[in-house]
């Protein structure tokens, strides 16, 4: 299943947030969205996931999601959004409970995703007992449990320290290489974008417009540190971002 944005625009009251965004998200690809603060990245993601209606334009699904998919468009939130009163297991089971699965089927899915995210030992822990990185792994496990067609991630790693971020990024890459998934990944971090993205969309400052789409063909598993081509792409992205950020700052001065 592919997703397609067809000249989407949006305003909150008088503030125009997004202007004429058209974008294809092909299945099996990770699309990263970068852009200065407040340019409407989260808004765009919420529209892709059906949590917000675009002011103009259309958000389209092309093709049907796979049959075993319980929730085609699945979010991973920056602040984890775990229910503090449910255990790790309970948080995963929450999203399966409305789906007419037998207890055994649910147990199988929960066991499988906790194993894939290396959380099996912590099945009965409450969120307050977990570190930030583990909480985000629970959120990833919860998202995997519904077998999504597209994962929508809004700065999933930005609440974590840099070591944990590295580890989780490796986890994401190995999850993807084992079984490619489609994802839209919003981030501030250009290094993350060039490690994960097949396609990197650079948005301009508010109102967000597509400034450039950078494609990276190197397979995910082969991207390593110090790769010159990647380094160049990152420099190029930073050049684009810096202009936007500087212009955004200058605008603030004039208000």
């Amino acid at each position, binding site marked *: 299943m592919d997703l397609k944005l067809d000249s989407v625009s949006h305003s909150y009251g008088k503030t125009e947030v997004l202007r004429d965004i058209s974008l294809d998200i092909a299945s099996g690809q990770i699309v990263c969205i970068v852009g200065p603060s407040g340019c409407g990245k989260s808004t765009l993601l919420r529209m892709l*996931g*059906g*949590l917000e209606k675009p002011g103009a334009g259309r958000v389209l699904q092309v093709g049907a999601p796979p049959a075993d998919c*319980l*929730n085609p*468009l*699945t*979010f991973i*939130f920056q*602040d984890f*959004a775990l*229910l*503090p*009163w*449910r255990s790790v297991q309970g948080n995963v089971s*929450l*999203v399966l*409970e*409305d789906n007419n699965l037998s207890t055994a089927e649910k147990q199988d899915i929960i066991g499988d995703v906790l194993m894939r995210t290396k959380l099996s030992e912590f099945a009965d822990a*409450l*969120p*307050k007992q977990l570190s930030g990185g583990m909480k985000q792994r629970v959120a990833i496990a*919860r998202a995997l449990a*519904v077998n999504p067609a597209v994962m929508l991630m809004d700065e999933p790693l930005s609440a974590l320290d840099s070591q944990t971020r590295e580890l989780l990024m490796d986890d994401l890459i190995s999850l993807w290489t084992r079984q490619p998934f489609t994802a839209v990944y919003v981030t501030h971090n250009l290094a993350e974008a060039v490690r994960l993205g097949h396609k990197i969309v650079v948005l301009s400052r508010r109102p967000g417009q597509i400034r450039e789409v950078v494609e990276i063909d190197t397979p995910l598993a082969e991207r390593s540190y110090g790769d010159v081509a990647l380094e160049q792409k990152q420099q190029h992205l930073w050049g684009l971002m810096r202009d936007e950020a500087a212009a955004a700052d200058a605008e603030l001065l004039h208000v």
Partner: protein
Amino acid sequence: MSDPVRNVPFRGGGFVATRKRGVGLLVFIVLLLFAEWGTRTGFISALTLPRPTDVLLTFQELYQSGLLFKHLVPSLSRLLIGATMGATLGITIGVLIGLFSLVRAGLVPLVAAIFPIPKIALLPLFVIWFGIDEMSKYALIAFGTFTPTVVATYAAVDNVDRTLIRMGQSFGLNWRSIVTKIVLPGAMPGILSGLRISLTIAIILLVAAEMLGAEYGIGAYILQAGSLYDLERLFAGVVILSVMGVVVSAGIAAIERRVLRWRV
């Protein structure tokens, strides 16, 4: 010349509630001992304050004559029935206000209008509506418990983390699941601390209702004692009320410890 060496002065700490056992009890005991000593030495005249040991004796008489339970049982059942009715209705309406904007628009002004009414002032009205016996007392207690419960409940529902609700929606949970698995558990802390207040108000209203027409009941007992200026019996009655207050508060605390274990 050597530089002086000293510890860095400690200036952190404090501003954290820690659990200190027995201190509350100690305050009670000190006050009682002071009253006992004052009344024995004549420093406090017998007309001002009854002697604690006399109150204890009165209490013992009350217990042995079997009158204690004759007063306590009707009071407790009134409290239980009235407060249960009021709290149940209050939580239900509060959740509805929290969930539906239409209900909120319709009922919040009404609740604001009835909140400041001293409910005791309405007892005559309840007597006309529900008759002189039990039902009007239940109604008074229920009405008094209802308003603070409603306000606490809808505030608690409003305070549930919206990102959790959006999360539920983004996983395609149905409306019922979102309410029972996300909204209600999330509102629980606020609802319980609201109950703490409304149950205390229920005890106050219980006494008020019993003072205005009941043969048996703690309120009736206190009223009789008061009209005879029998301070020992008056205090015995008051002590019973205090104990009820402490028991209610301890009960809620126990429920909180059990239900809200997940809180940080």
